[in-house]
Each structure stands twice: as C-alpha cells, then as structure tokens.
C-alpha cells in the first residue's frame, strides 16, 4: 500500500461517541473513551471526541467525565438519528482538518456503517470487532502504530493487525469489551476539555433515502447480558429448542440470564439478542456455565473475562474444556434436566 505523504502530521485519537436512541450516551462509548485515554497518555497524544445529535449539549457534561481533551459537537434536528450520508460526510471533513492518528468507534449499527465508509474515503485500514488495542513503536515501520487485536479470520488464533502506511488507523470495538474507568482512576488532571461547536450546514436536499411516512417505534427486546452476574449458555450440543427452553427455567432458578452461541440463534431456538461472541455480545459475569458449547474462538474470545467458567459437554476434547475452571463431561440435556430437579429441592 502506498504510504500517505503527510503521515507524520497525524496526531491524537478521535473517538466517535454515540447517542443511544437519542436518550443517552451509549455505555460502550464511555468504555472506548477510557481505553482511548489510556492509549493517549501512553503515547503523549490527545483524546478528541466527536458527537453529533439533537440537543447534544445535554450529554456533554457526561462525556467530560471520561476526560477527553477536546469535544467536537454539533446539535441539529437532522442529527437525531445516525444518517449514513450526513454523519460520514461531517466526520470526513473533521478528519481532513484535524488529521487524527487513530479513529475509534463502537461496533453498533451506526459504528459499523460509519467506520468502513470513512476507511474507504481515506483508503486506510479498518479492523472491526477488536478485542484489544494498544499503541507501540514497531521498528519495522519506524513509528508508533495502533495495534488492533481480534480473533483471526479462521482458526483458533488472535491476530494483531496494523495499517502502517495509511492514516487514520481505524478500529471498532463491541460494547462490553473494555471497562469504563471513573474519572479519578483515569488520571488526576481536572482541566475541562476544550469545547468546539461544529456548524451544521449540510445540504439536506442531497439525502438520497427519503422517508415516506412517519416511522413507528420498534420495541427492542433488551437482554442485558453485558451486566448479568450469572449466565447459562447453550450451544449446538443442547440439540433442540425444547431443551434450550429449559435453560430459561435454569437461569430463573439461579437468578441469571440465558446466552447462546451462533448455532441456537441460527436454528431459532432463541433470539439474536442472546448471542455471545464476535457477532454478539461480550460478557464478564461472576459465573459462566456452558452447556454443549464446543468453544470456537468467535465465542470464547467474548467470555474470557468471566470470573468462573464451568463447561458441560459430552465431548471430552471440546476446546472449551481447556479454558474452564470446572469441566463436567456429561450430555448437556441430561445434566440440565437433572440440575433443574435438584435445584428445585435446594431452593424450596
């Protein structure tokens, strides 16, 4: 890849902060800001926030708590929802003006639209679903680079990806991957960030996707796996929908939540909101119990922060056994049924 000519001019970490359902700042944005702060302090750079929305001023004090150096904001009715033309166009302009070293966004509906579009416009690399980020000096390239770690395309490996010749270096991270740090733990500086209001002068006649009628609200099923302290997870080895349903009863008895790998979601034993893994959610419960989960990296890379991992699997050699604190070699369905019966006696 041909090197960008002004590569040395790119400085600072720009973070796209998302307003969720035009109600509050997305929790994942705070997590990302905490990581950005850590990386910026390590490499002597600034953290820049870009936040676009309707009445966005109300969120600025919350964002300040994550200690960014500058907040670029714009408030306008047309920014109420993420728009796949306005947002990329405005942020493209901002990147051209301020030349950030890195650009980070959450892997959400907005972030997954925005980031690859920006990457295409700057002909730069973009790594989605990162499980870790770092900044290090790589002698091979003679400069500091953003190291983006994620499960490799195939196989049970974690790849470290860089885009050494182009700028900005772009990454998306799923909510739940990083931990949000409170203000005093991030650093002890107490200066207020610089606030820079962006003018809204977008020509709305350029919008290509036109709304024909007023939209109706979709009540999203909220399953708060990211915050659950106990999760029972079913995989392919649960075998059928009927057995999978028993996991809900089990979770009820243990005061936990039900999670799933890809197979139960694809077979429609449960809804997509329950999927844990690279295309689903990242979790960090006190106890994670897996039933019939084989342990593909796409799933396991999202459960490593669990305090205790128990795996129940008929296959002794299942990959998940290795990363478990307790291994129970048993048919998932039989174990679930017996456990429910036993727990009912215990809790009665």
């Amino acid at each position, binding site marked *: 890849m041909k090197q960008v000519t002004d590569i040395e001019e790119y400085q600072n970490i720009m973070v796209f902060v998302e307003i969720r359902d035009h109600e509050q700042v997305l929790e994942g944005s705070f997590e990302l800001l905490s990581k950005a702060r850590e990386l910026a302090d390590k490499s002597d750079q600034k953290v820049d926030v870009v936040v676009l929305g309707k009445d966005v001023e109300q969120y600025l004090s919350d964002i300040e708590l994550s200690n960014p150096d500058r907040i670029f904001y714009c408030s306008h009715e047309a920014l109420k929802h993420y728009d796949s033309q306005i947002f990329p166009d405005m942020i493209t302009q901002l990147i051209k003006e301020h030349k950030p070293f890195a650009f980070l966004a959450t892997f959400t509906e907005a972030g997954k639209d925005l980031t*690859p579009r920006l*990457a295409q416009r700057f002909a730069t690399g973009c790594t989605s679903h990162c499980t870790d980020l770092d900044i290090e000096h790589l002698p091979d390239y003679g400069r500091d680079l953003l190291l983006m770690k994620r499960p490799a395309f195939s196989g049970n490996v974690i790849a470290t990806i860089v885009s050494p010749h182009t700028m900005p270096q772009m990454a998306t991270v799923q909510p739940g991957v990083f931990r949000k740090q409170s203000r005093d733990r991030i650093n002890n500086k107490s200066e207020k960030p610089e606030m820079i209001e962006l003018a809204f002068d977008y020509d709305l006649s350029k919008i290509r996707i*036109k709304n024909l009628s007023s939209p109706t609200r979709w009540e999203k099923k909220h399953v708060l796996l990211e915050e659950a302290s*106990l999760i029972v997870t079913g995989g392919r080895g649960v075998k059928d929908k009927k057995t999978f349903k028993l996991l809900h009863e089990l979770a009820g008895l243990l005061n936990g939540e039900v999670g799933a790998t890809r197979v139960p979601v694809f077979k429609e034993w449960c809804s997509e909101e329950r999927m844990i893994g690279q295309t689903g959610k990242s979790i960090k419960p006190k106890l994670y119990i897996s039933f019939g989960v084989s342990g593909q990296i796409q799933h396991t890379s999202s459960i490593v922060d669990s305090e205790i991992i128990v795996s129940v699997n008929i296959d002794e050699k299942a990959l998940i056994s290795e990363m478990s604190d307790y291994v129970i070699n048993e048919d998932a369905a039989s174990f679930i049924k017996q456990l429910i019966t036993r727990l009912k006696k215990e809790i009665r």
Partner: protein
Amino acid sequence: MNLQINIREKLMLNIIVCTKQVPKTGNVKVYKGTGTLNRKETENIINPDDLHALELALHLKEKYESHVTVLTMGPDNAEDILYEAYALGVDKCVLLSDEQFRGADTYATSLTLSRAIEKLGGYDIILTGMTAIDGNTSHVGYQISEFLNIPLITQINDIEIIEKHAIINRLYGHEYQKVEVDLPILLAADKETNHVRFSKFSDINNCFDKKIIKMNMEDLGGTEDDYGIKGSPSIVVKTESFTHKRQQEKIDGNLDEKVEQFIDILKKHNILKY
C-alpha cells in the same frame, strides 16, 4: 408495438449478487499447535447471509423482469458455489480469480468487486450478505456502496420497484421506516430478510452445463498495486494461538454425583446459600 418493447426494456432490472465462499464454521479443522485453519480438510460453503441475498434476487426476478448475475472472488474452486447459484436459478455467474487478488483485506476486496461490477455494465440493484461468517467484519457492503457512490439499505422487510426507484420497508435503529430511494441501490441481506429456497432437481442436473465467466486483473484494469495483499492497507503482524488455560478441575461420577458436586461448587462460590 415498439412502445411496448421500450417499456419492457425500462423495467428490466439488472441485479448483481456478490457472494463469498467460506469455510463451514462449527466444523473447522484446526492444526494442533499453530491453531490455524486446515483448509484442505475443511468443507466450503456459500456464506449464509449471501444465500439470503441470492434469495432476495430470485424473489425480485419472479416479481419483475430481471437478469441476475452472481459474482464471487476466490480461487478456482470457488466455482463450486457458483454452480450452486446456477442450481438456484440465476442467469450468469462470474468468478474473479487472479494470483494478484490473493490476500486482499476488506478494502482491496471491495475495490475489486466494485471494479468488476462496473465492468459488467449497467446495474440497478447490487446485493450482498450483511456479514461473512469467516471474517465477521461487515465492511464490504458499506465499502462497495462508497466505491460505487450508491445508497446501501439494510434490514429490509419488503421491497417494491416502481420504474426506476424502490419503496422499501426497513428497520433502522429502533424504528420501522418506509423509504423511497432512486435506483441503483445496494441491499444487504441477512437471515431475517427471507427464507432460502431449495434447488429444483432439474436445475441441479443442469447447473454444471452452464458456463462460468472468468475475469482476471487484466479484465478489471489497474495495476497489481491495487489488488490483493499489495492493495490492502491492513497487515497482520502477529498471530498467537488463543489460550486462556484454567485449572480444568474435572467433575467425575455418575449423573447424580456430578450434579451434586456442581451444587457444591455453586455454594462454594456463594451462588447458592448453604
């Protein structure tokens, strides 16, 4: 008479579906030690979301007079998924294959597909799967939409084509919207979009008689710096096998004994009270 022909020509939709051959996950064979994929022993399939894109194309073909072209980039054996596409009833299959295309990241992939789409001539609707199960990036649809400068619409509930624009019901954020957009457009499909049909036996029998058109770098134009690993801004600098080994305490005994010991574990960690 003439007028009618003109109207027909106007309504003829040119649809191009981008597909990818992927290893069948859930059944991958991994080399012990390195943890990398054993491609020889792993079965390949059409990426699941791409099947939904194909289905959407065939649905449109039933509703409107259309010509459906399927495009894939890959090694020669990626032909397999194109024969499968013929068996489902598409009109034309194109394989983009060249040594120079190897090692492409999502940027170089999107560029290659976009150039091929432009070479194929006019198009009204481009279809892709939302995400591929091997890479899980979801980048390619968005980047093709940037390269071709056409709008991309995801999470489609239904679509109607009226002359040269589309009326689409879609889910966007936390809203259902009815939108209007001029063609050409790009649509990304996933498992929520539709149910995939089965091939007819007659089509399966005939699919291998159909011709797969091959395109290489020369056909697309540009230089080798544009494609494959050379045209990719992303570089993998390190791979480490994923190990998060824990103590792996084995719980033995018959079913009852195992459950009993598990109850003890729950108590030990204060999940259940004694």
